[in-house]
């Protein structure tokens, strides 16, 4: 069978988009969105705290949850939701240490994919560090709920500032029109607002009800690390869609120059 048209081989195909256009679009996306976040982050964090508080209200006695303010970027107020502080007993910490130790040993022999086992070991090691800390030197623990809330909320503001930048770098060079890509970046931000609000409520619940022993694990394993899973996930879904679309439009590919 002969082919009526031979397309460019994948080895040297590329797309033609002026590099200046990419730079222009990058600035067009990043600068205004960053400004919007910088201007409105007090209001966004306030709404985040209100929603998280409403979610948690049935689980806490009246007055246990409090919204406070602190100063952050550009001398604006950032809102923090704080709850009752709960510290683990030495016995709980010690037993948790032993459990983590056993878990780490089990993970080395258990028949699951090694990449998952190593990730689980990473989580277990972080938590074991925390349990050992609370077993040996609990009096040195330097953080209050306000400190953790400050860390969490300020960190996610930084992630919100980072999302337009990393998403623009990743998707603006791809062969598609500008507005769907802009929409995708905004969608990622909206997803992040919702996700971080729900996660804030969950973190607060765990720290208040089950103690600060989980603080390190929550921050290092389920904090910003998880944010980048959905960022990469959204990028992956979009690129998959684009790859499918490009199959029907081979003319987008150019050759060499």
């Amino acid at each position, binding site marked *: 069978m002969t082919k009526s048209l031979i397309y460019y081989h*994948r*080895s*040297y*195909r*590329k*797309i*033609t*988009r002026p*590099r200046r256009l*990419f730079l222009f679009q990058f600035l067009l996306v990043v600068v205004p969105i960053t400004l919007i976040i910088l201007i409105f982050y007090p209001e966004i964090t306030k709404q985040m705290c209100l929603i998280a508080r409403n979610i948690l209200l049935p689980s806490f006695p009246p007055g246990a949850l409090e919204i406070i303010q602190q100063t*952050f970027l550009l001398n604006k107020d950032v809102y923090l939701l704080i709850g009752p502080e709960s510290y683990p007993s030495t016995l709980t910490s010690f037993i948790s240490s032993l459990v983590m130790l056993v878990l780490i040993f089990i993970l080395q022999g258990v028949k699951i*994919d*090694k*990449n*998952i086992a*190593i*990730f689980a070991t*990473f989580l277990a090691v*972080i938590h074991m*560090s*925390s349990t050992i*800390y609370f077993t040996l030197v609990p009096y*040195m*623990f*330097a*953080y209050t709920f306000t400190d953790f809330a*400050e*860390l969490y909320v*300020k*960190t996610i503001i*930084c*992630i919100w*500032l*980072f999302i337009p*930048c*990393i998403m623009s770098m*990743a998707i603006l*060079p*791809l062969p598609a029109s500008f507005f769907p890509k802009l929409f995708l970046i905004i969608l990622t931000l909206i997803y992040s607002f919702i996700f971080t609000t729900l996660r804030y409520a969950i973190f607060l619940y765990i720290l208040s009800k089950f103690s600060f022993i989980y603080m*390190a694990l929550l921050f*290092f394993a389920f904090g*910003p*690390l998880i944010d*980048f*899973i*959905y960022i*990469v*996930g959204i*990028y*992956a*879904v979009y*690129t*998959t869609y*684009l*790859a499918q679309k*490009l*199959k029907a439009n081979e003319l987008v590919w150019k*050759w*060499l*120059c």
Partner: protein
Amino acid sequence: MLILKIYLIFAVCVLIIYALRHFLFTLSRLLMEQRIYYQDIINSELQSVTVIIPMHNEEKVASQILDLLIRADYPQDLLQIIPINDFSEDATSKTLDDYAARYPFINPLHRYQGERGKPAALNEALKLATGEIIIVFDADYLPPKGIIKDISSFFNDPEIGAVMGRVVPINTRVNILTRLLDMERTGGYQVDQQARYNLKLVPQYGGTVGGFRRDVIISMGGFDTNILAEDTELTYRLLTHGWKVIYSNRAECYEEAPETWTVRARQIRRWSRGHNQVMIRYLWPMLTSRYLSGKEKLDGLLLLFVYAMPLLLLLALCDSLALFFLGEMNIFAGAVAILFVGVYNTFGNFAPFYQIGTGALLDGANKRILLLPMLLFNYFFNTWYIALGLLEAVWDVITGRKAKWQKTRRFRKEGKSLYQAQKR
């Protein structure tokens, strides 16, 4: 305390440099002018070529690669094939002898004495080689018909010492590991290697699906048997002696990717150990070489340190945990948080995600791109085993210990055809 903070900021700065490098490569591959290899040059005077295939207990795959090479689009009077039976205990030896009896240009080398390992085997094969150009394939590779002509076409450029082709896993569909490895290869070859070739930086000779000039390597004393990563060592040796290493994205060859995590762990640990041995040996010669431009030195430096990065990141994680428990979490708040949180978590874990996504897009892939978030788990896996490899390399240097070569296990069913291998 100050040292811990300085180290964390240092780690973040290094990550930024690598992240920008990945981004530059992505832009170069997607948008900029592509530098083509020499395969379109029609040369009426072909060079003599020797294909070397190191084999250690390769009865499952030996006949397939030989069958494919026999069918290669290259004059058989200019072709010599040296399959090396390197201390095999299975039927490899018999298979090679059967082929040698039928095809005079197949000259097996049986090794049951002397030093073991790929570099030593290659050195012995070089003594028998008659071709001006040496092309090396691992035994599990499935070379297409035109690849010998493609790879050997570099010979007419007198500056080029070695060339590397593109490696494509054939058993992609077997499980999640092979799918993820396929993605890593896509990013590594379709984007990374081609971009380095575009930008006239340092494409890397990978030890298989690649070729080099026989006389040049022999005049340099052959392969160093003390180094596990003989391919990376060759790359830097050629560069520091004034030769160029180039990349041919068109010279594609299928390989069998590891199908179990244990095999993969052993493989990357060995790569890391070998690569870091090269780093220790070639860091200074590369930086002071008069043959390399400033940008080649910079890229060569970043490439040398690629397998040192996971340990740096692992230490950065321990560092940040220590700061956390020491009550110094305020390093993360404020302006530094932007650096730490953004860079450490994004680029630390997903550094090449846009590079891999772009590579897959250029390849015309579709659903496999959806697996990109799974790379998070690979990050921890790679970090651990690569860090172990680095520690082993350092220990090798301190104690003068000699590394033992370990063969990568094959998964193909004996006698399966190329088509069946693809269908798996």
